[in-house]
């Protein structure tokens, strides 16, 4: 494909792609996210390919292997367009019937559609299934419509129009202002305003400036970044290029996991295709703006997702956080101003440019704008990745979308933020999803991993589990983190095994306070958060195991 050299040529290319596509042609969209992949969707994909060949339907039916649709609980998921009929838990044996009944005769197969476990009500279309119906999707909504290896699919869905608008209709300052006005807050954990960070990096002196996609997502129970990045890599890349333009950076890095080959493959293809199309590299879209991206992999340790540790890793050093009191947006990679945002933050950028800050700020709460991707897991009926506007209550997340707690059990608590997050009891279920509200309660959203805990959950054991995870996932450089976590895990193991002593809780609190104030990086500073939040709300469980 020849490269695209102007905004007009981009629109021509887009029209060209769309003109070759018949919106009424049957398209079988098969989810190939991590969950469905694990459930054997590769066999389902081959079965569809075989059956279509056998029945000579190649010209009439398209197959699209896509990223995660979100409903991991019911995978492998297959959606048949244009009717949008959604089939769940599809096996290779179901495939001939789907082709003959649904594709050819337009009949819905009853046993493959969604059945509400409580009411027995059936729903054939994605838009009628409560799990999807109660979400507001602006980011993950593209996943079922896009083959992540096809840049044309992304362009067909309006892709790179945000970049084109930024480059040709806006100055870098205007882009920055728009993102600031949108009050886009970092989705990686801290919720720090992305625009302010961009501005710092833009204004900091330095001959080179860098932008980074943090795609490490090491938090156990968080898998939404993977879903977006694997399923729609161009969405993240487009945001990154827009950010680079605003900041004045010509070199970007994608830092991601070494253990997700599908993600790596899709990123590599996306970078190659974007370069081929003139959307990346020298003179992007003929605008004169140059920007390149390199991919780096983590070294298999949780702390390498910490921003300064990640930057050391990019420099080829050990992934240890830096002890400096100077922000990485001023001095980051090779001491140059470096702006780091996580996958989901970057994914939000192109829609802000496209639809404007005013539209963006109309979604969400007063101080948390837009939507948030949440991974639902634990004792919940519908495990999966969901997208909701800030302000959605936890009750809506757990019950309306998540389908509640399975096996008739009662909800005990919800835990946000993995091993550095916190748990809050059932009574706070009407709290809206909001960075600040949840942080006040001791359960900051973190990256967005929501773990549902039922009445059988042992809170001491849960806390011990998280600390045990961190014992070896800390880098081990500073004393309060390395030794503090080690000792807290030891004490919790004793309490958990019934060998707790009088004074253990107070000692835990004392260590937690020191680790929380004196540790070098956020890992050590927040490692005791699960402990402190569970002591705040479930102290009696600890006491019961000591006396």
């Amino acid at each position: 494909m020849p490269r695209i050299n102007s905004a007009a040529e981009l629109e021509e290319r887009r029209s060209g792609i769309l003109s070759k596509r018949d919106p009424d042609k049957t398209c079988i969209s098969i989810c190939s996210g991590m969950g469905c992949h694990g459930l054997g969707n590769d066999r389902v994909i081959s079965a569809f390919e075989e059956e279509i060949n056998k029945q000579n339907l190649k010209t009439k039916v398209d197959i699209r292997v896509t990223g995660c649709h979100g409903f991991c609980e019911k995978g492998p998921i297959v959606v048949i367009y244009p009717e949008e009929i959604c089939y769940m838990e599809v096996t290779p044996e179901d495939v001939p019937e789907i082709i003959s009944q649904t594709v050819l005769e337009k009949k819905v197969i009853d046993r493959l559609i969604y059945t509400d476990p409580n009411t027995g009500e059936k729903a054939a279309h994605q838009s009628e299934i409560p799990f999807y119906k109660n979400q507001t999707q602006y980011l993950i909504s593209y996943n079922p419509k896009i083959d992540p290896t096809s840049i044309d699919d992304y362009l067909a869905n309006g892709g790179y129009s945000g970049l084109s608008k930024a480059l040709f209709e806006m100055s870098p300052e205007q882009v920055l202002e728009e993102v600031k006005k949108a009050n886009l807050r970092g989705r990686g954990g801290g919720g720090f305003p992305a625009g302010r960070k961009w501005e710092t990096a833009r204004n900091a002196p330095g001959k080179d400036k860098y932008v980074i996609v943090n795609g490490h997502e090491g938090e156990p129970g968080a898998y939404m970044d993977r879903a977006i990045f694997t399923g729609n890599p161009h969405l993240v890349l487009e945001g990154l290029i827009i950010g680079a333009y605003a900041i004045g950076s010509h070199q970007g890095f994608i830092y991601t996991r070494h253990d997700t080959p599908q993600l790596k493959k899709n990123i590599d293809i996306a970078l190659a295709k974007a370069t081929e199309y003139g959307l990346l590299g020298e003179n992007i879209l003929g605008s004169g703006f140059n920007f390149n991206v390199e991919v780096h992999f983590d070294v298999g340790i949780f702390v390498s997702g910490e921003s300064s540790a990640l930057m050391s890793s990019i420099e080829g050093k050990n992934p240890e956080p830096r002890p400096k009191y100077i922000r990485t947006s001023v001095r980051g990679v090779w001491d140059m101003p470096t702006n780091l945002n996580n996958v989901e933050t970057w994914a939000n950028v192109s829609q802000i440019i496209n639809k404007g800050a005013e539209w963006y700020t109309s979604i969400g709460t007063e101080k948390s704008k837009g939507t948030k991707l949440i991974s639902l897991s634990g004792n919940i009926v519908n495990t999966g990745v969901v997208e909701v506007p800030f302000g959605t209550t936890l009750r809506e997340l757990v019950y309306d979308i998540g389908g509640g707690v399975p096996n008739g059990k009662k909800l005990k608590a919800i835990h946000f933020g993995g091993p550095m997050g916190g748990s809050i009891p059932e009574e706070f279920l009407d709290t809206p999803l909001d960075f600040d509200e949840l942080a006040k309660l001791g359960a900051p959203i973190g990256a967005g991993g929501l773990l549902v805990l039922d009445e059988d959950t042992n809170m001491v054991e849960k806390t011990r589990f998280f600390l045990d995870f961190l014992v070896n996932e800390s880098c081990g450089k500073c004393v309060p983190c390395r030794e503090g976590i080690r000792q807290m895990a030891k004490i919790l193991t004793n309490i958990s095994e019934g060998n707790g002593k009088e004074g253990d809780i107070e000692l835990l609190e004392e260590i937690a306070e020191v680790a929380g104030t004196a540790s070098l990086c956020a890992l050590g500073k927040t490692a005791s958060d699960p402990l402190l939040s569970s002591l705040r709300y479930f102290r009696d469980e600890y006491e019961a195991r000591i006396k």
Partner: protein
Amino acid sequence: MKEILLQIDGRQVKATEGMTLLEAAQSADIFIPTLCHHEKLEPYGGCRLCIVEVEVNGWTKLVVSCVYPVEENIIVRTRSEKVDKIRKMILELLLAHAPDSLQLQAFAKEYGADRDRFEKEASFCIHCGLCVRYCAEVKKKHAVGFVNSGARREISFIPEIAAKECNDCKECFELCPTSYLQAVFVLTEALAFP
């Protein structure tokens, strides 16, 4: 270099831009305890013992003095209830690994740290990184490094380099605040080159 005036423990101290709080305090003969600091090495910020209280525009925060840069008009307190509490805990956590270290014992006395607060887990190392950093930064040999992470982190000599370099050097031995480095080295040597 720009001159910067700050207050440490009630005294006016003159420092120059780019200095750390620890350096400023040392230049004024004000003592701050350290374990991982060495004047020939880059600030490390690992032991956190040099934590101090800093008041900036009325806001008090705890910072690690070996890496915190001096700022105009800030007020530094090298001792306070909070600072002492943190130092005591750090020492207690480290004494579980090196209970006989003279340096740790001296600090423990000052801060009332209980040598036996935590169960002993003698590892002959408190991970200050002095040997590792000295070998890398001063000697530029990288004969000893850290391996593993978190609670499993330990120092390790790289046999291929150690065999060539260490015999005539051993300058890292005397840096060790637990005086156990030699034991580790000898042990490694014995295992690696029988």
